[in-house]
């Protein structure tokens, strides 16, 4: 997908004026946060599990070449094929080649952020194939020609009325007067329509939550069961996953699974956790005839050994965005790329470039809530800060801001001059503001006073008052 992160400020403003979006985001926050809190309260070892999960993923990243090559060996041994893709173009081509080799017409898809990243759907359509998203949220936004706004809840920006409207516009074969006002109605309708698609698809494409080096298995977790139908019914199953999804052993997947669903939806486990290992073997009752794994790098290996390496521990649970007050204000689309929210602010500059994405790591108060809830203990504010340092070095921040900052810093390093300037400025502001106690408008502070009053300073700085206080005390105390 073509990044739009350079438009963050504009898109954030638009999002803030969208009352429907605000309503949807408020519902999301309450749901995800409360459920997570409740389920974690029931697992005393949750904090220990976070440490274990972090350590095992660090170990994997430090030996990623080894585990990737072991993964490839195991997949091959089990009769599958691994395709290496350095770029989105290579990943798309690999998928298309497999589809063409079996003369595929329709492709069902399980939810996958990596296929969003490489822009697979548009490419398949241009190549004459019909991709069909089968996750309910993804299906809805595919009908609406939109992008996901959240990594686990792609249609979170929509309200029920929006979905009803979309279904009525698209499912014209159904009774126009049918009831469509509850989630169950949407699920039933989508299920009936998707059932035929599952059965007629030639190829099924899924992502992967993990790639297990020990067994060559790929793992997906879903709540709708659509992933299983996508990968089991068609002749060919293609997994498209990025390289950092690798973990060493089957047992390691159990460790991470214990923190994943709890952090994501507040479930103890997702409804379905599915392990795929190779194509159908003789005697198996079902399964695909071909099993392919397309492994995408797209800039990730270049993050190894840098300050941003920790972002590669991410298991895409979405907890950081569910708890982020900035994401909660503007939603996911404003971020302009596949991965929004705090993890996007930490990861995207590394994958799509700082020039494109330098606004994202700035759009944070460093409140630290994201790092507090991250099951993989990714130090998200620290990585955002790293990008700000790079941004400053590359002089990408607005010139006016840089000049103001440089002037302030010049004074801050010279206490005596600073004091003179502060006394003068505060003296004046204090006199001006004493009557009302605050300013509704003030030149040079428009960003502040556009939305809130500026409390006026007292008469004189603390240091001035303190010096007077000390002088008045001096005779008696000496």
């Amino acid at each position, binding site marked *: 997908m073509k990044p739009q992160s350079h438009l963050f400020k504009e898109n954030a403003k638009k999002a803030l004026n969208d009352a429907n979006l605000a309503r949807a985001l408020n519902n999301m926050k309450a749901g995800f946060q409360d459920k997570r809190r409740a389920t974690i309260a029931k697992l005393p070892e949750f904090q220990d599990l976070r440490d274990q999960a972090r350590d095992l993923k660090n170990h994997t990243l430090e030996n990623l070449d080894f585990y990737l090559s072991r993964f490839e060996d195991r997949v091959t041994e089990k009769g599958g094929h691994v395709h290496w893709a350095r770029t989105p173009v290579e990943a798309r081509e690999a998928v298309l080649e497999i589809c063409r080799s079996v003369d595929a017409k329709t492709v069902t898809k399980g939810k996958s952020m990596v296929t969003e990243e490489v822009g697979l759907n548009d490419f398949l359509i241009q190549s004459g194939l019909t991709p069909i998203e089968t996750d309910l949220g993804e299906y809805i936004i595919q009908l609406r020609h939109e992008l996901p706004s959240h990594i686990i809840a792609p249609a979170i920006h929509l309200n029920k009325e929006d979905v009803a409207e979309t279904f009525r516009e698209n499912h014209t074969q159904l009774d126009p007067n049918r009831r469509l006002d509850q989630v169950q109605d949407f699920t039933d309708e989508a299920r009936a329509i998707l059932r035929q698609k599952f059965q007629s698809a030639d190829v099924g494409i899924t992502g992967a939550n993990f790639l297990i080096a020990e067994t060559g298995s790929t793992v997906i977790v879903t709540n709708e069961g659509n992933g299983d139908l996508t990968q089991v019914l068609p002749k060919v199953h293609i997994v498209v996953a990025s390289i950092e999804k690798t973990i060493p052993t089957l047992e390691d997947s159990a460790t991470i699974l214990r923190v994943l669903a709890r952090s994501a939806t507040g479930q103890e486990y997702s409804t379905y956790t599915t392990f795929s290992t190779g194509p159908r073997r003789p005697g198996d009752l079902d399964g695909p005839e071909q099993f392919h794994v397309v492994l995408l790098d797209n800039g990730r290996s270049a993050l190894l050994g840098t300050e941003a390496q920790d972002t590669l521990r991410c298991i895409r649970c979405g907890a950081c965005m569910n708890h982020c007050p900035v994401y909660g204000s503007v939603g996911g689309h404003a971020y302009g790329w596949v991965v929004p929210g705090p993890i996007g602010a930490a990861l995207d500059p590394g994958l799509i470039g700082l020039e494109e994405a330098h606004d994202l790591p700035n759009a944070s108060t460093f409140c630290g809530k994201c790092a507090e809830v991250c099951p993989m203990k990714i130090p998200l504010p620290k990585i955002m800060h790293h990008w700000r340092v790079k941004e400053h070095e590359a002089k990408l921040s607005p010139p006016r801001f840089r000049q103001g900052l440089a002037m302030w810093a010049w004074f801050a390093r010279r206490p005596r001059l600073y004091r003179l300037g502060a006394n003068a400025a505060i003296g004046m502001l204090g006199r001006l503001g*004493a009557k009302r106690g605050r300013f509704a408008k003030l030149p040079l502070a428009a960003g502040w006073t556009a939305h809130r009053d500026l409390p006026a300073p007292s008469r004189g700085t603390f240091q001035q008052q303190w010096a007077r206080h000390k002088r008045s005390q001096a005779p008696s105390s000496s």
Partner: protein
Amino acid sequence: MDQPRVGLFVTCLVDLFRPVIGFSAVTLLERAGCQVEVPADQTCCGQPAYNAGDLKNSRSIAQSVIRAFEDFDYIVAPSGSCAGMLRAHYPDLLKDDPEWFPRANHLAQRTHELISFLVDIRGMASVENVSFEAKATYHDSCSGLRELGVKDQPRRLLGTVDGLRLDELPGAEICCGFGGTFCIKYPEISNRMVADKTADITATGADLLLAGDLGCLMNMAGKLKREGSATQARHVAEVLAGMTEGPAIGEPEKAPGT
């Protein structure tokens, strides 16, 4: 250390906008048995530069703070954000400098946010003979909460103020949207965050908002005033020190009708 020497890191906002917080801090520290000094050679902890990724200026400011404060037994700031900067970020900022890294660490280990210093280090369990009639609520500022573990200490001391009723603020741990230069760089997002915050504050029915960081307080008080709210805002130290005779944040010098 019977009477430890404490260097008060006033913070730039308290120095410039609300000296009463500095005086409250001095009063509380003296009541806790400390000998308080206020070095004149202090300006700011350097967060605006640090958060903008300007390492050169942040290092230089950090060095001048270290020089001014390293001889004290403790360094105390009436702000979790600034204390967090000295404690959590100075050592990281100077980690590659063999001369300054040990000095930064030495300073960091002895730096505390005011209220947690009073309770955790000085063992203060109550404030004596302090009363303030108010129905208050308390916002947890992010850096104090997450970098320094300031959570129960202010509540414990506030619980000993006569006449003060403290009702918990729903979402007390959610950022108010100040974020230093964030509120200037992203004014619309900051506005949404502070509006959500003031809606929560108003819903408690509190007539007094308390917090431990003046930046957050100016943001929330400024929004409350803009909305026409009668809820007043003060730094927790003012109430604990009993220095509440002056106007609340953003209020005129003399309250109407007096």
